[in-house]
């Protein structure tokens, strides 16, 4: 059997398995039997989809031109690693990767034995339905296994992969991001299952928590990797452009962040249940919308990838179907979830309501900014842009309010005002944050944005420190108490500390950066932020599938040689495209970043853009810490287990 037929058969079997999984999960049959059949079907789907994925990967590795997908997106001269990663560098292949994740989470839901059988059975059914819809879409409209047409002339070689994607970033950014997007499908499925029977409570919260935190951690990492990739690959000196596709990844992240805080309230107080259900549906809906947005051609973006409106419409239909269907179910059942419990505003749950309010407003703002140009273009015909200045004005003040709410939430106990022990440390945090922010702004001659960034970072940092200090008690008890903290608590500490670093890194690297445009002849020197930049000369060499021209630069600091770097430009003949390869040198916690442009007049002079980005490594490490916090919490043992452990070690630790 040739690759095309075999792959199609595998995907067809997987589609059938998904149908069985959906039917047995959703049909009114016994929980035991339904769960067993649905679980077995989930396993079969996982095996066939993964097999199909490796089949396609193998076709890419050997540049098998009998598949039109390989012909269009690969080339025999491409380095081996980019042949493999090129598997998901296109619409069809990335859909298959999406399916692998969808089937993987289906398998995890089937074999994750905790939780109530009825809930799991129905959740598997919903997950099967999702997989069925996406498999059908793939097989019917976007099969990566479509054969190269027999009537076309035999191709000498493939058409190659977009050079921008020939980068290690492609190996890790899309899979991590998809893990996050698709991980939210498990949260969606459990939520629909719980809504169906009108009982979404502690049981539901405990079951979705690990899936949600894992997906959220992966999404955080995926977005961070995307920002890092854009930073070193595009050569624009920035890491976030409020590009529609970046926003499309931010929206599910914002919804998921609100949700994971909301789930805590459900778990601890059995309250806010309808709100949580709505957020869970919206979070996955936002993921689906993102999948549609990248492939629709309605937004222009550096991610523009398979601009194919027709297939995009089908994806939009799927997004609307699953989001809308979920919301209709929510409208029917939501009222039965309203709890009658009393709610004290000055309490941990009160702070978490504030958190959810702010995150939702942020989500709405990003949504508005992303789709407003489309609304205006459709209604008036005028093309407008919504860019960084809009988002800065809207989000920076909100960030300060959110940071203040975060510190408050970390200090205040659940349920009650307490004895007011939180008030004094909170006043200190606010005071130190405000005074420290103003002092930093004045010292560093920053503007009002810098003030907001510093204040927000200090509030969060203060909250984390005060929270740890409260948990540690006195210096004598600190070691014993802190080592007795649960992994969940440590996860929160890591994530919030990471957030403080992230905000400080963003503030410092974007507001206090130095940018210089230089035109240098060989041998000329320019000074940027105290560093002498000397252009030594240019040379050309051949890479594996590109020609590279690099410009040698020596960086000296008052006579001492700091670095010799080669910012370069590559030309890829197969794709007839050029890329910029920037030179980045770490200076303490910051970076020196040099991008070399072409010659201004065809002679030996070169234009350079030189940036110094102070503290930018705080940004990257902050993002990693946030994700790590999510993973630590996701894999933390459940309450019963950790309670047993605590009893064994007999260490008293306040929650």
């Amino acid at each position, binding site marked *: 059997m040739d690759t095309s037929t075999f792959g199609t058969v595998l995907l067809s079997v997987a589609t059938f398995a998904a149908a069985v999984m959906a039917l047995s999960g959703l049909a009114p049959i016994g929980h035991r039997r339904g769960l067993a059949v649905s679980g077995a079907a989930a396993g079969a789907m996982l095996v066939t989809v993964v097999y199909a994925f490796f089949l396609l990967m193998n076709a890419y590795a050997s540049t098998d031109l009998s598949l039109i997908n390989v012909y269009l997106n690969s080339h025999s001269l491409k380095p081996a690693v980019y042949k493999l990663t090129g598997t998901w560098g296109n619409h069809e292949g990335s859909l298959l990767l999406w399916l692998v994740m969808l089937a993987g989470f289906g398998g995890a839901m089937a074999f994750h034995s905790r939780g109530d059988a009825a809930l799991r059975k129905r959740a598997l059914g919903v997950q099967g339905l999702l997989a069925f819809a996406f498999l059908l879409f793939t097989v019917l409209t976007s099969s990566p296994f479509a054969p190269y047409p027999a009537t076309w002339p035999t191709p000498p070689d493939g058409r190659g992969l977009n050079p921008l994607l020939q980068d290690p970033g492609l190996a890790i950014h899309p899979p991590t991001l998809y893990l996050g997007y698709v991980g939210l499908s498990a949260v969606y499925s459990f939520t629909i299952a719980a809504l169906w029977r009108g009982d979404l409570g502690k049981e539901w919260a405990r079951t979705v928590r690990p899936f949600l935190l894992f997906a959220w951690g992966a999404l955080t990492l995926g977005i961070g990797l995307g920002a890092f990739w854009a930073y070193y690959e595009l050569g624009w000196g920035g890491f976030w452009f409020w*590009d529609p596709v970046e926003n499309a990844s931010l929206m599910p992240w914002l919804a998921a962040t609100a949700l994971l805080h909301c789930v805590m309230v459900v778990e601890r107080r059995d309250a806010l249940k309808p709100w949580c259900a709505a957020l869970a549906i919206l979070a996955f809906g936002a993921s689906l919308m993102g999948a549609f947005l990248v492939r629709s051609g309605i937004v222009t973006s550096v991610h523009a990838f398979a601009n194919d409106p027709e297939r995009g419409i089908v994806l939009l239909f799927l997004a609307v179907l699953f989001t809308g269907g979920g919301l209709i179910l929510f409208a029917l059942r939501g009222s039965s979830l309203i709890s009658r419990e009393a709610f004290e505003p000055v309490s941990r749950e009160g702070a978490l309501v504030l958190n959810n309010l702010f995150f939702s407003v942020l989500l709405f703002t990003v949504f508005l900014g992303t789709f407003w140009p489309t609304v205006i273009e459709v209604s008036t015909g005028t093309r407008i842009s919504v*860019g960084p200045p809009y988002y800065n004005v809207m989000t920076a003040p909100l960030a300060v309010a959110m940071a203040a709410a975060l510190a408050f939430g970390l200090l205040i106990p659940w349920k009650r005002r307490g004895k007011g022990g939180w008030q004094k440390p909170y006043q200190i945090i606010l005071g130190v944050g405000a005074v420290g922010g103003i002092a930093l702004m004045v010292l560093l001659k920053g503007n009002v944005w810098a003030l907001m960034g510093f204040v927000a970072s200090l509030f969060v940092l203060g909250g984390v420190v005060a929270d740890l200090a409260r948990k540690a008690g006195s210096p004598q008890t600190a070691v014993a108490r802190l080592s007795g903290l649960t992994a969940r608590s440590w996860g929160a500490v890591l994530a919030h500390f990471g957030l403080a670093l992230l905000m400080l890194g963003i503030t410092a690297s974007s507001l206090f950066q130095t940018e210089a445009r230089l035109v240098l002849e060989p041998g000329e020197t320019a000074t940027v932020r105290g560093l002498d930049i000397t252009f030594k000369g240019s040379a050309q060499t051949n890479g594996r599938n590109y020609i590279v021209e690099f410009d040698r630069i020596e960086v000296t600091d008052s006579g001492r040689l700091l670095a010799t770097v080669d910012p370069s430009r590559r030309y890829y003949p197969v794709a007839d495209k050029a890329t910029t390869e920037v030179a980045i040198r770490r200076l303490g916690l910051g970076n020196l970043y040099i991008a070399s442009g072409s010659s201004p007049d065809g002679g030996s002079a070169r234009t350079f853009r030189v940036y110094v980005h102070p503290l930018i490594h705080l940004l990257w490490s902050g993002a990693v810490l946030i994700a790590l916090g999510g993973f630590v919490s996701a894999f933390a043992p459940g309450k019963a287990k950790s309670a047993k452990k605590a009893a064994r070690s007999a260490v008293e630790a306040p929650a």
Partner: protein
Amino acid sequence: MIAVCTLLLAAALSPADQERVDALSEEFRCVVCQNQSIADSDAEIASVMRTLIEERIAAGDTDAEVRAFLTARYGEYVLLSPEKSGKNALLWAGPALALLGGGWWAFSLFRGSAKRQS
């Protein structure tokens, strides 16, 4: 030659004016690029637009006049921060309205439960 002209022109601007040019460059989109401001872009049109801003500032224009000039020339599309006009009312007021509406909802949540408690 172009580089020399730009340098001469830049030299004519005071540091304060140069700062205004840099700040304004962040506010305009490079029309041929994907989501890049003219401050970030190496495209030819971006450098032309930056030079235009320098010229207008050197001629004594206010920031608002520079914005009006570039919008008249290249269309509303180049503004990265859309006009605060009637048709964009929802874009600019939406987030604040959402905050107010959500705040009211949160308040009613607490008040409702406080009532039930008493």
